[in-house]
């Protein structure tokens, strides 16, 4: 009987924490325990330097903010479906000559909605509770220090709690929802349009509707422009659907409409595809077949296709999307790399920090606007 009760309590507790958080914790490595060399694995140092030091035990690390202008940050994937009330706890040793603040940036757009100065403390737990306007996508936490006083942070936790605990608090409002945010009604969106997205949604989204700048199902919704895809900008947002310049996207770029592409061909699976030179063999000359370019799979986005793609059959000077397309084995163009999972443009994996201790991979997805050498 006792074990049944115990198991039930665990089950209820586990169900209550379902969502984008880890057992209710919105912050990864809340104890600064994971160090990749002398760098924090799950935190991004915005400016200044940090150092690993001992906290209550030699083996339990804390992070010291070194210097007079230091800031570390982390973007949490928590969103409106997880809850609207959050409690932030922190254990730190802050000298009175150090000016340390906790900044809360809802949706990580660079606008700090709340800034709390951490009082001088000697390892005393500090707690802040704040409410959030729903819906929202992600919260960026930033701890910044100014001044030369010592500031060591040992534990920082942000947890979604019952909304009743935030009764009476003015919720932090990131403002109208930008394109790519999930939504329930048109009024939530800055664009005034909340539609079912043609794209797969981020893992943290629980609805299929997003704020859009145009209706991709209506050809004239953008006038002289075309309703297409903007660049991905956040792991917690969907790729925005907006009015973009026509025929501006090079071979290999993401698209949802033919008119976006310089080739005027968007090879799609469903609505999500890549600018291509063909979609069928009949569009190719000289007996070539219309084949996927390169070997990097872009699921769920369709791969770009070229005549003779991936077969080393494309002649010099002809369009290509990968080296494997060309007879010469060399496709000259702009190498395109994206963060795995969210499509953010990247050069290195350091730009793909999010949701986990290891950065997301920065994958080369093709060569845009290339021609075979």
């Amino acid at each position, binding site marked *: 009987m006792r074990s049944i009760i115990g198991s039930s309590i665990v089950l209820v507790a586990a169900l209550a924490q379902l969502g984008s958080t880890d057992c209710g914790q919105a912050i*990864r490595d809340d104890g600064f325990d994971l160090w990749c060399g002398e760098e924090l694995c799950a935190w991004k140092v915005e400016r200044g330097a940090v150092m690993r030091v001992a*906290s209550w035990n030699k083996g*339990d690390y804390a992070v010291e903010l070194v210097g007079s202008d230091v800031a570390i940050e982390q973007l949490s994937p928590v969103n409106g479906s997880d809850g609207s009330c959050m409690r932030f706890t922190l254990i730190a040793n802050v000298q009175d000559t150090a000016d340390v603040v906790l900044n809360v940036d809802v949706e990580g757009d660079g606008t700090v909605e709340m800034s709390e100065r951490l009082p001088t403390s000697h390892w005393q737990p500090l707690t802040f509770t704040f409410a959030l306007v729903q819906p929202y996508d992600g919260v960026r936490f930033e701890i910044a220090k100014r001044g030369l006083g010592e500031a060591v942070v*040992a534990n920082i936790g942000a947890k979604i709690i019952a909304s009743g605990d935030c009764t009476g608090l003015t919720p932090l409002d990131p403002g109208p929802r930008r394109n790519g945010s999930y939504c329930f009604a048109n009024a939530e969106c800055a664009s005034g349009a909340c539609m079912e997205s043609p794209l797969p949604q981020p893992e943290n989204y629980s609805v299929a509707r997003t704020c859009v700048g145009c209706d991709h199902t209506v050809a004239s919704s953008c006038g002289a422009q075309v309703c297409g895809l903007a660049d991905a900008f956040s792991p917690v947002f969907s790729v925005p659907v907006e009015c973009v310049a026509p025929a501006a996207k090079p071979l290999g770029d993401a698209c949802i409409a033919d008119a976006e592409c310089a080739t005027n061909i968007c090879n799609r699976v469903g609505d999500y595809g890549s600018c291509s030179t063909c979609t069928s063999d009949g569009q190719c000359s000289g007996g070539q077949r219309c084949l996927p370019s390169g070997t990097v799979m872009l699921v769920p986005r369709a791969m770009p296709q070229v005549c003779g793609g991936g077969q080393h059959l494309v002649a010099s000077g002809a369009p290509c999307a990968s080296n494997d397309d060309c007879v010469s084995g060399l496709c000259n163009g702009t190498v395109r790399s994206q963060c795995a999972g969210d499509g953010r443009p990247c050069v290195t994996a350091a730009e793909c920090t999010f949701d986990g201790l290891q950065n997301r991979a920065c994958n080369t997805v093709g060569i845009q606007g290339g021609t075979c050498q």
Partner: protein
Amino acid sequence: MRKLLVALACLVGTAHADDAIATYAIVVGSNVGGAGQTDLRYAEDDARRVGQLLVELGGYAKERVDVVVHPTPEQLRARINAVADKINADLAAGRHSRVFFYYSGHARASALDLGSDQLALAELRQRLFQLPSKLTVVVLDACQSGAFSRIKGAQPAADFSFNSRQQLDASGVAVLASSSGSELSQESEQLRSSYFTHHLLIGLRGASDVNRDGMVTIDEAYRYAYHQTLLATAETAVGGQHVSLEVDLKGHGEVPLSYPRAATTHIELPANLEGKTLVEDKRSRTVVAETYKAKGAAVRIAVAPGEYRVLVRRGTTLSRCEVASGGTIDLDRCKSEAITAGTTKGGGFERPMRIELSMFAGNERHDDYTDNLYAFGYRNYFSEPSAGLEVLALRRYLRWLSLGGVAGVTVMPTWKKEITGGGDLSQEFDWSQWRLAFVGRAEQWMAATGFGSHFSIYGQLMAGLGIGTTSLRNAEGMTFRDTHVGPAFGGGLGLHVDFGRGIGASLGYSYDYAPVIKDLIGNTHAGGGHRFGLSVTYSF
């Protein structure tokens, strides 16, 4: 000088064997002491028991056994004179006579103390020795009663080298004294009798009948009383008491004092029985016999018809045998039980040492240290208890007080910190605490005898040294160990059960407090809390 058992003269007779010999006994008991003397408790009862035995087993007619309690010197002289008159009358009728004189009471080296009056030993000796009887036996149970012989210049028999068959005669005088001329004679609260008279009576009931001829001679009675009295008094605070014998007899016949074979009821201790044996009259709740029965020969103890309880102690086992109308003791039919610890006559303890091996568990105290662990993200799920083992050694110094030491280890609950977003990565904090402490325990048994004597309750306090160890394995797989030292205190209550043969068990509660383990930011954990334990114990 506390107690003097002075003289007794008796004529021992083969009464039923020779009608031509008349037998007379004067049996005197006096509890009241003289100036500076504490009253005795059992002298008059001893006199009554001697008189009863003479009638029961000595062959004396009841009307010829004169039991005199608390007499004045004048009354005692009158009783001796009365017997002298009867003896003279017998002589005139052509009959010989024998006299048995017994005295239990206070005495000094020169006189019997009969209350506030005294009767000089020299006068008593003269009066008894001048009786015209053929044989006079004097038994004195009093302090310095051996002085009765020194008056004459005779020395008490030193040991068992005395050979009665060669030196005793059927006529003359024999004096059996409970102690030497310089020793004190003692009573026993446990026996409710004097040591000497108690063992003399047991011997006369058959325990001293070495040759098993159904007759106890003065030689057999002396040897038995000497041995048993010395053994029984050797461990008392007063010290050993040596029974002495003076003889001035003629002839080579034996001098019988009792005829156990004449009794209608016997309790027989079989040849294979070995152990300290006690026979109790259930009706009067008095000890009829107490002896150490050695293996090899059976012993028959004559008793009056009635119900008896025979207690046989062998090692740590006590057998209780109920005997309704005599018979042979069969231990297989007796109830046996373990002997509980208790005080011996000499003041020591049976099984004074006890070793305990305990397992215990309980909640760990929450304080600033554990609050800090919690704040740093550590959790000990499901209220995992602290648990441990300890060994405790105690030595009893008073019946209720034992002192000793304890060594033990307590393993405290593991605190675990999951690394959020780190998959299976976690940090674990293990800690334990050792304790070396002095222990003082007060213990109270629920009963002195019977079932309750197996149970005791105790309370204890301890103070000593605590040694704490901590081990933190962090998310990188590195382990950091620390050792801390500090004071340790504790107190507890418990119930102990004795299963016999020194083996037992305890169920206890304790509350421990050991502020030992410290962290780097100024918090100290006072290890301990409420503990419940189960122990196995061994006493020796």
